């Protein structure tokens, strides 16, 4: 929509301005990692960070979310609502913004999930462009998520002496209007070409770690269903569910009823679930369609690189590298995909 400059010294003021209207969550250091958490002051954030333990998905689709209250014996929910404040997600990486677009695809798809929709209406995404690659686990270049494209309200790019703000939605525009005094205008052409230059420079610092390129990925997966590689992965997997918990595009959930101790009523709640856990695909009679760890791991990656393309016309891997980073068994998405690629190329 439009581009403006923000003086680096004015970031604090810009933040304080936002704080007047929004709860702000941003990347905060936690031991040697980062998490998205509520911040009161711009100094609490670490804008140069490796992807947070959990992605910002948790604000759209919380780990545990009440679907509604009920009274025992009734058949209708007595109340269905969410509790939320207008929130700014500050400093989201481009990969995580892609992740949000993936969950949008799932939850907005007809029939749209009303909880997700209401939450996403309350959220404003202010991105922060990565000017260098966070670490070796990331595959954002291959997944084409390393540059801002869409899905945010405002994108902040570090242009050395100042920030470039790309305003990408009416919501973002409102904020920019309010912050008028803090900002500096210039011709759109000029800023755009500056950005192009910055991105060319930045690419030198990014590494491509997947052998296959974007266009080959789907084919590689299409032919790999019966690969032996899954068995090897399955042997090492311990089903801790970490990879699915941290993934910005995993969306499976379970629903259960929680009853008050006096048994007068309770609430129906959904909670993140994981296709890596054994009971996930079990049905009556004890049959389990993904009993083996190998088939569960395969299912996970197929959901990222194959099924999602069929269903949502989109890769459901943002290249954030979280699953590789978090796996205790050292199962690396990069290694697995590269092994599959090599296997395919050898044949």
């Amino acid at each position: 929509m439009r581009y403006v400059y923000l003086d680096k010294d004015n970031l604090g003021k810009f933040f304080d301005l936002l704080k007047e209207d929004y709860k702000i969550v941003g990347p905060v250091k936690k031991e040697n990692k980062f998490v998205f958490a509520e911040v009161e002051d711009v100094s609490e954030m670490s804008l140069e960070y490796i992807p947070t333990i959990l992605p910002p998905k948790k604000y759209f689709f919380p780990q545990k979310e009440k679907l509604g209250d009920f009274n025992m014996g009734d058949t209708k929910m007595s109340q269905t609502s969410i509790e939320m404040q207008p929130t700014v997600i500050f400093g989201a990486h481009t990969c995580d913004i892609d992740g949000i677009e993936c969950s949008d695809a799932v939850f907005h798809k007809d029939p749209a999930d009303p909880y997700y929709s209401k939450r996403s209406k309350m959220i404003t995404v202010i991105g922060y462009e990565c000017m260098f690659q966070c670490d070796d686990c990331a595959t954002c270049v291959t997944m084409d998520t390393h540059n801002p494209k869409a899905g945010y309200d405002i994108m902040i790019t570090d242009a050395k002496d100042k920030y470039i703000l790309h305003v990408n939605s009416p919501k973002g525009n409102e904020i920019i209007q309010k912050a008028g005094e803090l900002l500096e205008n210039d011709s759109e052409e000029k800023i755009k070409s500056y950005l192009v230059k910055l991105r060319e420079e930045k690419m030198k610092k990014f590494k491509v770690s997947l052998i296959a390129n974007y266009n080959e990925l789907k084919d590689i997966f299409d032919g790999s269903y019966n690969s032996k590689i899954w068995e090897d992965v399955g042997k090492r997997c311990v089903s801790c569910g970490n990879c699915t918990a941290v993934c910005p595009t995993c969306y499976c959930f379970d629903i259960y009823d929680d009853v008050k101790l006096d048994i007068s009523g309770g609430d129906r709640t959904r909670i993140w679930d994981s296709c890596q856990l054994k009971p996930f695909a079990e049905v009556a009679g004890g049959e389990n369609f993904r009993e083996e760890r190998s088939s569960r791991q395969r299912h996970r990656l197929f959901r990222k690189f194959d099924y999602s393309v069929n269903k949502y016309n989109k890769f459901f891997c943002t290249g954030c590298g979280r699953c590789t980073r978090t796996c205790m068994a050292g199962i690396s998405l990069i290694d697995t995909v590269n092994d599959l690629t090599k296997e395919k190329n050898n044949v």
Partner: protein
Amino acid sequence: MCKCNQDASKTISVDSIYSPMEGTIVKTENMTETEKFFEIKLEEGKPLGDIPGQFVELSIFGIGEAPISVSSSPTKQDQSTFEIVVRNVGMFTAALNKLDVGDKIGVRGPFGRPFPIDDLKGNDLMFVAGGLGIVPLRSLINFVIDRRRDFGAVSILLGCKSPNERLFVDEIDKWSNLTDINYACTVDKADPDWKGNVGVITTLIPGVDLDVNKTYAVVVGPPIMYKFVIKELLKKGVPENKIVLSLERRMKCGLGKCGHCQINDLYVCQDGPTFLYSEIKGLEEAL
């Protein structure tokens, strides 16, 4: 645990797709030791609006929800109710089996892709039901009987573990007496009073006379049955895209979100539960 950081959030009401409608149980019948029949009426006698092959999510607050097939046909006389049969296998189904006439139950749905009725029209039909499979199939069979002229020759093959596990005995008796229906039944294990066939259901298939050019086979049963029945049908020459199945998976939402019912890239709750064999043939996780 510490709840220090609670913020001042707004309450925003949500028009929930997870909110059930109210159903009232108007009739029940214990069919076997573990299976119970229920007839349910929605508020103001509103028809459910289902097509054979679809299912509903039934809900009892405090216990949970479960997907259950609609067993009645929308063509049945009293359109203000629908029928289901529930096998007591666990937490929810046990609680449901304790309910009786007059009790209320939550209903969401109908969900899922129905049997491809338009494609079936004008064709010969062979129904193959194993065990509880007769429950969803019954809706289609009754539909076909009620619209008999729209369809060609009909045969019904039933299989059961033992005679006392048969469901809808009286109703099926009536079907078997219909002159325009070819009927056969078998049990895995007979008891002394049983005079019919003994053996697995696949043994009935070779005996059926069918025109493979205009026959659809509709098969519903436990996972293990599919493998063998399909093999037999293919042997007989029934094309893969004319074998119709209904699959069952764990389900939480029924809306294509929760991921539980996923078979490769198919969601049983939306892409199914009914599938053509040709659609799922290559999918290892399907059968």
